[in-house]
């Protein structure tokens, strides 16, 4: 898994600034969805980075904040440039956390399926309602004001939720990385 992800990374080191910018934005949203669903904060992310041997890249709160703040969607137009190694670190951390909380993610996705099958609004299910509220609130708090409607944000949040299910699997890192790249093309 790691070797295949590394080989994917090697072939894509020459990313354009625009691509890196898009990747930053997407990774920030993936972590945002994890935060909103399982309530993890920077401590959990730092612990994951340490477990993965990525302390040099995201070893303290400040460093982690800077990495996430580099998202172009953030208020303040994050000036920190994210390089490929840092993007890789965030991918590894994201998938590691998704894996650690796979049970909760599976439960949430199952509830979502049931709600959709029964034509019920997802937010009426407790776990999903909390998730959507947290996602929307955090998004509005951190991101530059944009014209995304509540419905669009909910759609984004639910799509990210289902994606987390696959990112937490054995090939999650490679899949997330390829998805990040594919979206920038």
């Amino acid at each position, binding site marked *: *898994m790691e070797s295949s992800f590394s080989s994917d990374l090697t072939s894509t080191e020459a990313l354009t600034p625009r691509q890196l910018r898009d990747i930053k934005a997407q990774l920030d949203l993936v972590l945002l969805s994890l935060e909103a669903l399982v309530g993890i904060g920077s401590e959990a992310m730092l612990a994951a980075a340490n477990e993965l041997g990525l302390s040099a890249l995201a070893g303290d709160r400040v460093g982690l904040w800077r990495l996430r703040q580099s998202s172009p969607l953030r208020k303040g137009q994050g000036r920190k440039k994210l390089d490929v190694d840092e993007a890789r670190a965030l991918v590894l951390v994201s998938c590691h956390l998704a894996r650690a909380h796979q049970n909760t993610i*599976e439960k949430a*996705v*199952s509830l*979502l*399926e049931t709600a*959709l099958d029964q034509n019920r609004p997802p937010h009426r299910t407790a776990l999903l309602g909390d998730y959507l509220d947290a996602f929307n609130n955090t998004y509005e708090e951190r991101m530059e004001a944009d014209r995304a409607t509540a419905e*669009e944000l909910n*759609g*984004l949040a*639910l*799509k990210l939720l*289902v*994606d987390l*299910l*696959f990112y937490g*699997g*054995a*090939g999650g890192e490679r*899949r*997330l990385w*390829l*998805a990040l790249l*594919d*979206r920038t093309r």
Partner: protein
Amino acid sequence: MASTAELSSFQYEAGGCTLEISGEVSSLARIAGKPVLKRLRFRLQLREGTNNLLDARGMRSHLVSLQRAVEVYLQQYLTATTPNNLSMPETTGVYIQPRGLTRHRLHLADWGIASVPAALDLNSRQFNNLVQVLDQMDAAMELLPRQLRSSHPSVIPWRWAGTAAAVLLAVGGFGLLWPWLNQSTVSEAPLDSRPSPEVTGTIPSPELEIAQEEPASEMSPPEPESSLDESSPVAVQPQQPVSVPTTPPEATSRAAPPTAAPAPASSPPSPPASAQDVEAQPEANVAPPTPAATSPPAPATLSEPEAAAMRRQAPAGTAEQDGDQPAAGEDVSAWVAALESALQERWRALEPVPQPLEYRLVLSEDGLPQRLELIEGGVDPAERSIADLELPPAPASLSATVKVTVYPDGAVRVNLGP
């Protein structure tokens, strides 16, 4: 004589999904650092509680096509940023389409496994379980793409049979004439003396397909459960070390890379059931493949009288000086392989069929393929003429009806049935 193949089995589980794989571990495993499987058989089960959603058994080609479909679909699914972007076109072979945000429909009609439904809807959790077992397998082992070439050909493809037949005729004819040519030493050689095995064994055959054991049919389920149960103990955890069986000397002499064999008719892209995926049935009691000398060649380029004469002169079991009887099954297997190869190459140039079509092969009294009669599957849009093909005559030991199935992607499968 090649040793009996030793089978290894592996099992991967995720939620209600179980993938069992059995096959021979290639000696390449020593280089790869993990099991490299050949002659693979698998069983994939998807369960939801007590409901059995899917129970599929197949060969490597089936597994690879499923794995590819899952990987392509999943990556497209993850790349889509919103649910509105999830619309994926139909394709041939196994493919998957989204059903809303959380459901995924597997289209299996063209998978080539008869026992599976045409389509199967999975929720995201079930689909993820399937993804996980495939990922586990992918990480734990390699699947050998195709049979490696052997330095000891076990089958002479029919295209070279003309040369082989000519040599046999020359040698056999010379042997027959020898008593008359050498009158000073009256030979005791019997009139039915046969050329030595070494003659046939040394005929070069670069387009070599080792048709050791052809699967009887890809439309019908492959081996019964006992084939997996009879194998060595299942390693439940995918990361457990695997005992690599000691390979016979001749296996280590196979130097050709897995993809180097230029088969007469190479596999079409993403076949639902590759006709060139020559794999043995993983039975513990499978007779090892015998050298080419045990199989009388099929004289495809001889005239009918010559071919009939060859068959009369060299019935099964008499070509061996060492007295070993060549297995009738090997004659049939070789003929099936040659037939598949020829038909596939011919039909690659024709308009593809809209759906799998099944034909019955009609043979002449001399065993020569004459024509194909459509059995079922609708109207054949193009004439499947084979009259001009130089096809080898069927072995005398063939007693089953020969059916030919043509798939939309051009793959051809020859089955022997009642």
